[in-house]
């Protein structure tokens, strides 16, 4: 499992973003080795859809998100956004294209400049692009700040550190909204937040998505969170894809052994649910030297000889349910 | 492996740049002819003097273009020939001067570093353990005072109190005195260098110790029931030593700078005072040799710090 392939790509005119064979490698300083952060993944997102991406730490989720923004540009692969190939754009064209895709980061504090007033942070994109008159800009910024639940008055006179983590995350969201993007990539936007605040932000994203007609990519390592917000979920493992399905389907019937383990491992806040996770061997290997064949094979309970040599491709195991595994769990 | 080669290449490039810069600068500055011939160098209208000038120029390659001289100098230097002291009668080799003076400066610096380290480690351990308490605050004030006292001023104060008023330490350094007597003669100078350095090290180590002491593994060690001193000395000191070592290492360069002033105040004929003298006399081979040696020491110390690092921090071992 944990493989490549494109069987799951849709051929719909509504596809807003289509990622093909995305590969991102980082050189390891001083050694000449490289980190295979993302090794050939493909997916697409339809307008208005929310795609969730889950996986363990270091499996390349953030790298994927950033590669779409060309921050940094991927090693290879194509990224087609609204008919525009992002990987071949010039610097200026890319600047332009970036306004249509925005990103929200995990750390609400580090994503805001500590030395600028909150309102200026939200206003900044409009100034960069010289959009509207000053009056129009003021109106827009105030409206968006109110939409995310921040008092514009206070925003005008306060710095980020005067807000709580949840509020900072909302400010980030506001900033990403002012340029009226078509798509927002959320890289673990709630992982650093407390449970009670986490729900606030998730609900806010759901609301804004409806209100502004957004398409979302939602990255998180917490399956329950991803499931709660996504239409479809992509499971990643060590830079490869494992499984892609609609969220309810995925949790109801995980077909990839890794997805299954992941689902199993989550301690449910319910004492009635007997918590007996499937034992999994060891921990994820290093992406510097990933295993041959299926990348999950060293830890897979269902491993076969074939998995050690041949890399599985994504295939449709049930309608709209794709899995990259030679030996999937029965559906 | 590749990394080490890079480092060595870098060090060599560094030394080349430093030497080329100094060589260029000192040649613009100094007039070796004048150093050697004195007033005769300016007596160009006298054919006898002019002939002498030509002779000296030829002898010391002063008629060659600068880059040629640099390359020659470099080749000589690499083989241990540092050229001659232009401004000293008879143009004796620079290496003689260096050999004679460098042990004093090295002794002074080692003594100063040892003092500084010996003072700073316990000082830091004590203050870090009492961080925030009165005694810690007083010690912080003390180190502020020490750091605000320029080394020449400190040297003067120490000299005033301990040499002139109390008479505990001699006023001169005498090269032919017995070894331990000479150690006593440079002690005040070493203290002058050591005190502010100790304050720097202490502040640094204290901060790092406090950071370390707040870390979970210290709590873990305490939760094992280890005694306080064991926690500090067995668990906390070593992981707190990284910036300490770096700074102690890198600071050696700074101490050499300090030794210039201190050697001058206490009239110790070492490398530092020699540097000042030769700059004033515009005797560039001496300046050049000293500057290069200092840069060399800097590079070597850097490497040593790296090695030390890998000894105390297993994480950087490869």
């Amino acid at each position, binding site marked *: 499992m944990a493989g490549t392939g494109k069987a799951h790509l849709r051929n719909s005119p509504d596809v807003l973003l289509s990622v093909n064979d995305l590969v991102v490698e980082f050189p390891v300083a001083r050694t000449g080795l490289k980190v295979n952060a993302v090794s050939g993944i493909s997916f697409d997102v339809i307008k208005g859809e929310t795609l969730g991406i889950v996986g*363990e*730490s270091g499996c390349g989720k953030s790298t994927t998100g950033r590669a779409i923004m060309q921050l940094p540009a991927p090693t290879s692969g194509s990224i087609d956004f609204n008919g525009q190939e992002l990987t071949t754009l010039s610097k200026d064209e890319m600047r332009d294209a970036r306004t249509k895709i925005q990103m929200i980061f995990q750390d609400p504090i580090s994503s805001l400049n500590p030395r600028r007033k909150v309102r200026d942070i939200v206003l900044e994109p409009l100034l960069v692009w010289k959009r509207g008159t000053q009056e129009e800009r003021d109106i827009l910024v105030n409206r968006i700040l109110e939409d*995310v*639940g921040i008092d514009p008055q206070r925003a005008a006179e306060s710095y980020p550190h005067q807000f*709580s983590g949840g509020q900072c995350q909302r400010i980030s969201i506001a900033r990403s909204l002012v340029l009226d993007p078509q798509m927002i990539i959320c890289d673990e936007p709630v992982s650093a937040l*407390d*449970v*009670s*605040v*986490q*729900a*606030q932000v*998730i*609900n*806010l994203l*759901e*609301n804004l998505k409806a209100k502004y007609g957004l398409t979302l990519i939602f990255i998180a390592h*917490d*399956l*329950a*969170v991803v*499931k*709660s917000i*996504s*239409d479809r979920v992509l499971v990643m493992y060590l830079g490869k894809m494992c499984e892609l399905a609609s969220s309810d389907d995925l949790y109801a019937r995980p077909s990839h052994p890794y997805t299954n*383990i*992941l689902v199993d*491992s989550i*301690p*449910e*806040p*319910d*004492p*009635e*649910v007997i*918590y007996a*996770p499937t*034992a*999994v061997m060891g*921990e*994820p290997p290093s992406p510097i030297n990933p295993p041959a064949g299926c990348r999950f094979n060293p830890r897979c309970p269902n491993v076969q000889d074939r998995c050690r040599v041949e890399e599985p491709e994504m295939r449709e195991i049930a309608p709209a349910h794709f899995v990259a595994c030679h030996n999937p769990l029965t559906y | 492996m590749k990394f080490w080669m890079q480092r060595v290449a870098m060090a060599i490039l560094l030394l080349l740049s430093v030497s080329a810069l100094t060589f260029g600068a000192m040649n613009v500055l100094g007039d070796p002819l004048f150093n050697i011939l004195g007033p005769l160098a300016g007596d160009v209208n006298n054919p006898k003097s002019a002939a002498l000038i030509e002779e000296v120029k030829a002898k010391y390659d002063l008629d060659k273009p600068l880059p040629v001289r640099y390359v020659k100098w470099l080749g000589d230097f690499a083989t241990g020939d540092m050229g001659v002291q232009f401004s000293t009668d008879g143009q004796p080799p620079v290496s003689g001067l260096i050999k004679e003076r460098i042990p004093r400066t090295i002794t002074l610096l080692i003594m100063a570093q040892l003092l500084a380290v010996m003072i700073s480690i316990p000082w830091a351990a004590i203050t870090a353990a009492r*961080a*925030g*308490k009165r005694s810690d605050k007083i010690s912080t004030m003390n180190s502020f005072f020490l750091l605000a006292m320029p080394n020449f001023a400190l040297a003067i104060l120490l000299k005033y109190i301990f040499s002139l008023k109390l008479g505990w330490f001699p006023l001169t350094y005498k090269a032919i005195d017995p070894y331990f007597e000479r150690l006593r003669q440079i002690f005040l100078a070493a203290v002058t260098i050591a005190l502010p350095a100790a304050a720097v090290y202490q502040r640094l180590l204290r901060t790092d110790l406090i950071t370390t002491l707040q870390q*979970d*593994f210290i*709590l*873990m*060690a305490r*939760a*094992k*029931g*280890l005694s*306080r001193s064991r926690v500090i000395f067995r*668990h906390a000191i070593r*992981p707190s030593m990284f910036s300490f070592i770096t700074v102690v290492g890198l600071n050696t360069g700074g101490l050499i700078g300090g030794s210039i002033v201190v050697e001058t105040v206490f009239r110790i004929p070492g490398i530092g005072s020699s540097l000042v003298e030769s700059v004033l006399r515009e005797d560039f081979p001496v300046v050049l040799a000293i500057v290069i040696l200092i840069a060399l020491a800097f590079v070597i110390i850097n490497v040593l710090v790296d090695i030390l690092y890998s000894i*105390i*921090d*297993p*994480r950087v071992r490869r």
Partner: protein
Amino acid sequence: MNDSDPRTTTPLLEVSDLKTYFRTERGTVKAVDGVSFSLQRGQSLGIVGESGSGKTVLSRSIMGLLGRTNLIREGSIKFNGQELMGLSVKEMRSIWGQEMSMIFQDPMTSLNPVMKIGRQIAEPLMLHLGMNKSEARLTAEKLLTDVRIPEPQRRLNQYPHELSGGMRQRVMIAIALACGPTLLFADEPTTALDVTVQAEILHLINEQRVDRNMSLILVTHNIGVVAGNTDVIAVMYGGKIVEKAPTKTLFSSYKMPYTEALMRSIPKLRQASHTRLATIPGRPPDMVNPPLGCNFAPRCAYARPKCLVEEPGLTVTENPEHVYACFYPVGSPEYHERKLELSQRSDLLSTGGQN
């Protein structure tokens, strides 16, 4: 408490009215503000609460592991009948490691990075049990086997950075278990780990607890983690225990509106996607200037004027193990009344709030 020894009459740990304050530049931080509970031998207690609610301070305060400067610590902590409050650090040292030990949140930072694993495990063995080097080494090797670390002998000579996160957490557990403590604190032992690894570590801790008949205090902000691993759960909010009940009881019949809000704000796997989550508005109280009455009142949908001025004490339910601190608990008439109002209002404001 199922595992508790019936012959034990006194509880292993009895904390009453424990207060732990920090003096800071901003004022006094009331990190733990009057906490009382008791724990039987072999029992496991889960402490949940949001970040900053005082869980870590509580467990460290009980162990006496907080720094002495600017600390105010009051109340009583009885361990095995012995009063710990007021013991000197020296006296505490014989308890640490031997009687009580602790596992910390971040396995990356909780092991000394420059000391070999073997020495770190052997240290308490030699100190408390008076073992010599080779005995300690053998015991350490056995401990590593117990926590299921493969090739224990080789690991002893490794440094922490040579191990993976999960491994390190196992080493930590081995150190904590080394001298056979009767009470183990685990402060967010799995937060820094991947889910797949988290499951195993939790399993390991529980297994060791049962094997060694230890008591366990498991501190976490993840209700899921305590649900399957503890006998009793205490919910903390603003430095206080606001509800405490046997695990099953808590999930089935919580009384505190805060517990309710917490439960409902967590996305659950079994819920369909896009299920709307309940939210708690605002943010946790400032521990320097806590609200006058009930700490939760400013955020509580069911709060009434009384809640804002008067502090509720702990109320015991019909189940003596189940206590809560609320004037208008879940199920009370006032609760129902307000709930009705709210649902009517949310109909009106169906455009959706921001929270």
